[in-house]
């Protein structure tokens, strides 16, 4: 180990630094490039215009998630634009020699679920994807960046991108979460504290005993939403939990190479006493089931709080923010959030569309029914998640409760496929963004929460405290 203690971010950054560019940025090697149908076609187009090839096709992996219909399996899809994007990705992967987890492979799914599932996401690596939730992969101790299409082009052509280093903020959460409180609540709580741009310029290192005890899926849920707090990158130091998850996955090293890899991965973890630009500490016991009331993920409150009142705002900015949010959400200032009527319940997304999410919901919803008038859909994050849920009978439990069980995709997280809110429907959603119009209707309303809270909202027809609804204590 080097004399100077370093953070994981620093070590990975240094190992992947190619050289300094003229403008002072670093040319950073991107070891793993994940692509999907929405942000890659223009990049391949630029490559063709410039007469360039993909430098490392064996380090480039594609899947289809955003536009793929989740209730239609046979092509051509009814939406010709969706079909065109599908065809374009297929053509690009074939022409440039990129591995494509197409639907026919049985491995298709949301890009941030597929990478870990396949063992492509590994500690000590750099990952880029034309999607802001790429931070998810940081759960494995990777430095994973969401990038724009021109950078997708850069990574395709050069396997690098131009970037300035980030500062590192360590966010320590210690202690045991109270019953009924989940990883989703942890990240909603963090973003509530930092605001939506508090993380600008930072990579987040999530640590502390709460994270040590988390499963990989829980770590992914938290890292996933780093960007909602403004941080482009979020990671957890790799440990035994990480290695156990990766062992035996299709792209994980095998045999002697596995032991070597684990030794290397361990060495990437932050050294004790390394420098952090900022440290934030949170007591796990202070976190309650959290829901949003507004139009950005920082506008969250615990389930037992009341909707903020602009009259009580401490600044003109805050007042204007609350007023704008409440006008859009059509929610009364000062009223309890609990009891707010919902129209739609959505389970899924790269934040909470994994096996553990559906297992947890199935455990509580078994024998219960979705309230009359509520449209409820459950969308597995990948074909593998779907298959596993089906093997365990989770799909049946959800279907009996009144959830529609769908095929894998992003679905109503951003509604680029046919799953959309209608008019000003209010959706209890396990996804990650509650922006105006996010779920496909320009007046549609989103309340973010954990999957079990979505289940509680579905069965009661209102924003509810899952601990009461399901007698959790």
């Amino acid at each position: 180990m080097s004399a100077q203690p370093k953070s994981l971010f620093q070590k990975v950054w240094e190992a992947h630094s190619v050289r300094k560019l003229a403008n002072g940025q670093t040319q950073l090697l991107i070891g793993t490039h994940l692509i999907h149908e929405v942000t890659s076609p223009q990049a391949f187009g630029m490559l063709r215009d410039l007469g360039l090839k993909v430098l490392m096709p064996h380090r480039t992996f594609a899947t289809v998630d955003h536009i793929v219909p989740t209730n239609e399996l046979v092509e051509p899809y009814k939406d010709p634009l969706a079909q065109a994007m599908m065809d374009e990705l297929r053509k690009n992967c074939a022409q440039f020699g990129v591995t494509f987890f197409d639907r026919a492979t049985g491995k298709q799914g949301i890009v941030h679920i597929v990478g870990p599932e396949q063992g492509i996401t590994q500690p000590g690596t750099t990952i880029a994807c034309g999607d802001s939730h790429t931070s998810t992969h940081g759960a494995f101790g990777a430095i994973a960046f969401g990038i724009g299409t021109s950078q997708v082009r850069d990574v395709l052509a050069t396997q690098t991108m131009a970037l300035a280093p980030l500062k590192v903020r360590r966010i320590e959460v210690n202690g045991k979460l109270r019953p009924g409180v989940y990883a989703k609540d942890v990240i909603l709580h963090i973003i509530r504290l930092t605001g939506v741009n508090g993380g600008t310029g930072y990579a987040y290192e999530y640590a502390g005993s709460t994270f040590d005890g988390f499963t990989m899926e829980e770590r992914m849920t938290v890292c996933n939403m780093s960007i909602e707090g403004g941080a482009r990158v979020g990671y957890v130091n790799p440990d035994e939990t990480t290695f156990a998850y990766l062992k035996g996955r299709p792209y994980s090293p095998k045999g002697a190479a596995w032991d070597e890899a684990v030794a290397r991965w361990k060495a990437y973890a932050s050294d004790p006493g390394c420098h952090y630009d900022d440290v934030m500490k949170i007591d796990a016991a202070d976190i309650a089931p959290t829901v949003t009331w507004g139009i950005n993920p920082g506008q969250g409150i615990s389930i037992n709080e009341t909707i903020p009142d602009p009259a009580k705002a401490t600044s003109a900015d805050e007042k204007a923010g609350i007023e704008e949010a409440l006008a859009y959400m059509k929610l009364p200032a000062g009223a309890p959030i609990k009891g707010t009527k919902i129209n739609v319940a959505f389970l899924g997304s790269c934040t909470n569309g994994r096996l553990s999410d559906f297992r947890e919901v199935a455990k509580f919803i078994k024998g219960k029914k979705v309230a009359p008038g509520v449209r409820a859909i459950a969308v597995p994050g990948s074909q593998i998640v779907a298959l596993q849920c089906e093997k365990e009978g989770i799909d049946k439990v959800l279907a009996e409760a009144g959830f529609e069980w769908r095929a894998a995709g992003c679905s109503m997280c951003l509604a680029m496929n046919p799953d959309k809110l209608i008019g000003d429907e209010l959706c209890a959603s396990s996804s990650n963004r509650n922006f105006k119009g996010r779920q496909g209707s320009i007046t549609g309303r989103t309340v973010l929460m954990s999957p079990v809270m979505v289940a509680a909202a579905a069965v009661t027809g209102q924003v509810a405290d899952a601990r009461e609804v399901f007698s959790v204590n």
Partner: protein
Amino acid sequence: MALEKITQVAGKAVFVPGNDIDTDRIIPARFMKCVTFDGLGEFLFFDVRHTPEGVPTGHPIDKPEHKGAKILLSGANFGCGSSREHAPQAIHKAGFRAIVAENFAEIFFGNSTTLGIPCVNASREDIAKVAAAIEKNPSLEVVVDVEKLEVRFGGESIKVTQRDSARDALVNGRWDAIGELLDGKPQVLETAAKLPYLAPAA
């Protein structure tokens, strides 16, 4: 590749007030069903510019007096949300060549710089001053000077800031990094050779 040196942007400006204007608002996801960026300009701020029934709402960028504006002024945390380059692309295709805001979300800032759109930061008070001046005279020429880090308008000026690397890239015509990145190929392969996970499968 020789790129234009972007030292300043001059033209009419328009103020789009608000904080945390996210990428879903800049370009709603449904307009991202496309395989090229062509034509995205007309969908800029689409859902704010139209009611659900499709009636124009009189958004600032639709006002006749702001037609042809090249400079966009806004509030804090502009461009938060997704990594979609469709957002700065829509802004560019709608004719804007510079953005002045209190501050910008990280990915949006990087994407814009790569397209040669200077994003400069100014204080809220200063942005309000420029906004007031263009309100009085919408055809006022506003100059975003990336080199001198100031915005000039009708004999007045305000100070702005910008990250050094972005400013350097813009004024020296290096805002699109692809040429320089391609030049580094020998070093890229050298760095890659030291990282076992990058080796092609045996």
